[in-house]
């Protein structure tokens, strides 16, 4: 199994900078559909599926390796070595922002800058720290993931509803977005929502953009502010957006913030 197959790697565009886009918990690289083509016009763009998600090779999913984010981080470094050219910016959504953090701490020379979209170093509240969730909330999520074993399977066949208003989506409807094996989804949810990387944040010296939605249940503004406070070389940008995926629901504002960051960042 090649790395390309393992992570369903797609490379497009060319330019002096390589942007590696990593999706978060719950979906796959199709999340980058609005941003990736835009950056491919003047950059080398690498998108991929984390092992266990999307069209990655499910047989490569080793529960022990992926029980913590460091397993994913070592995959990221392998992908950067094989597919990146020149200075590399890692664009990580949600949990992948922390995966990028770990990869960057392990090999600082491999990742020259980080864009973190809706990141959180720790989701569970801890005395003074407000992560946004209690431990039982995470259990409630695991419960929801489990009971969607059947529901989820049928949501992969959206033919009943169709999308008559958006014929451009017609062909894509044939495939399914955010395909996830429910068992893996539960394991990934545990690795994501029970992780705590607050102590790693101050050690990342590479330039970092924290892209924060003003109304995000998963990563509240307080978390973005906390990160901005403890990271030595971070910029915080808050965009108007409800939800956890500004790159999908507010792609224009997200791209503006990233453009500004990339312009200031001289490789």
């Amino acid at each position, binding site marked *: 199994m090649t790395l390309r197959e393992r992570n369903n790697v797609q490379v497009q565009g060319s330019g002096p900078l390589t942007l590696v886009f990593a999706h978060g918990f719950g979906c796959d690289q199709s999340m980058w559909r609005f941003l990736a083509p835009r950056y491919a016009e003047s950059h080398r763009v690498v998108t991929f599926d984390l092992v266990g998600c999307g069209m990655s090779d499910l047989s490569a999913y080793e529960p022990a390796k992926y029980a913590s984010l460091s397993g994913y981080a070592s995959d990221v470094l392998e992908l950067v070595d094989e597919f990146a050219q020149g200075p590399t910016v890692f664009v990580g959504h949600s949990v992948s922002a922390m995966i990028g953090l770990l990869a960057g701490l392990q090999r600082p020379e491999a990742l020259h800058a980080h864009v973190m979209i809706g990141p959180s170093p720790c989701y569970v509240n801890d005395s003074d720290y407000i992560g946004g969730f209690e431990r039982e909330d995470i259990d*409630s999520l695991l419960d929801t993931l489990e009971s969607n074993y059947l529901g989820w399977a049928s949501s992969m066949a959206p033919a009943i509803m169709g999308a008559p208003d958006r014929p451009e989506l017609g062909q894509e409807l044939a495939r399914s977005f955010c395909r996830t094996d429910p068992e893996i989804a539960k394991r990934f949810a545990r690795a994501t929502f029970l992780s705590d990387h607050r102590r790693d944040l101050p050690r990342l010296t590479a330039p970092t953009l924290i892209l924060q939605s003003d109304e995000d249940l998963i990563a509240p503004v307080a978390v973005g502010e906390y990160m901005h406070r403890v990271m030595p070389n971070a910029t915080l940008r808050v965009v108007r957006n409800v939800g*956890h995926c500004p790159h999908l629901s507010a792609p224009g504002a997200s791209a503006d913030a990233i453009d500004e960051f990339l312009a200031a960042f001289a490789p």
Partner: protein
Amino acid sequence: MAEQPPSPLPAPEPAQLFDEVPCGLAVTQAPSGLILRVNQTLCGWVGRPAASLVGTQKLQDLLTMGGRIFHHTHLQPMLDMQGSLSEVKLDMRHADGHRFPVMLNAIRRQHEGRAIDVVSITMAEERNQYERELLLARQRADELLLKEREAQDALRIAQSEASRLKEAAEDRANFAEQMIGIVSHDLRNPLHAILMGTSMLSSERTLAEEQRRRLVGNMMGAARRAQRMITELLDFTVERVGGGLRVEPRAVDLQAVVDGAVDELALSFPHHRIRHEKAGHGDAGADPDRIVQMVGNLVANAVTYGVPAGVVTVATSVGPQGASISVHNDGAPIPPQLLERIFEPMVRGAQAAAAARNVGLGLFIVRAIAQAHGGSVSVMSSQEHGTTFRIDLPSGGDPTKAS
């Protein structure tokens, strides 16, 4: 007789239909989820008036926390990307706190220039119970399968252990039978010689002094052979069953000990020349009685299997690195297949003369004694160089097995 076809109903009032259909309906702002319109059915289910929902609450606010996370990580991005959702199962919360499972379908539409999500919700209480039971049954089946696999593994291990024990027991039984055979056969010869001798001594009054002496000498030799066999059997039993031979090493002049042993052996084997070569000097840590026993076994072996009337060379070397005793004889080499297991009990060369036969434990005991000293024994045998057994003893003679 054909029945009258039912007459079609007039078109229902849309607002009334919206409110009264037996499923929950909501129209929300996309992508925020802010409720723009909600029907009576859904209001009844969540126990809240429409006025308290429209324009203030988001649809996801009506879900449990797990459902709200799921909405953010899965449902919202899917609606953004594929414009629809179907058959998603979530838990909703009633104003009084109790929760109930629902199935949710949604489609994104454009309405007068703004994006909205049209959401239909059906109660899934019984379906949920059924699915829970299915899930539980599957978990139980998985657990049972796991248990069965474990049981099978345990059974396999137990079976192989049992067959290993059975083989070992059979080996022991065979071995014991063989040994009884050899002992009874081999002990009979010297006992026979002693009985013959005593009967001659008691009946023949006219024996010449010379004849009498030879007779007594033969009887003593036979008695010694029998004694050696019994000693070997005892040592063997101790080594095999009693947890190892015991030796009591102390600082001794090893060459003097071997000298004494060789002198005695020369008397026992008058037809062979037994030489003793010495190298180095000093004390070695060893149990002198056991050294005599090892040299005796090896010399007896050399006499039995070596060239008739040949020379047996015993060489003792003592030095700071340890001591060694080797016993060499000329003669046909030991066959290679025999060489491999020559220190195992009851392995004997083919050409042993009946009179010199023993129980076949001599070399086994030599090895046991050497090892009890923390040393070892080895053998080299070839047509050209003859056969040499060599005992190596560590310096200091402080073997772990010594007591």
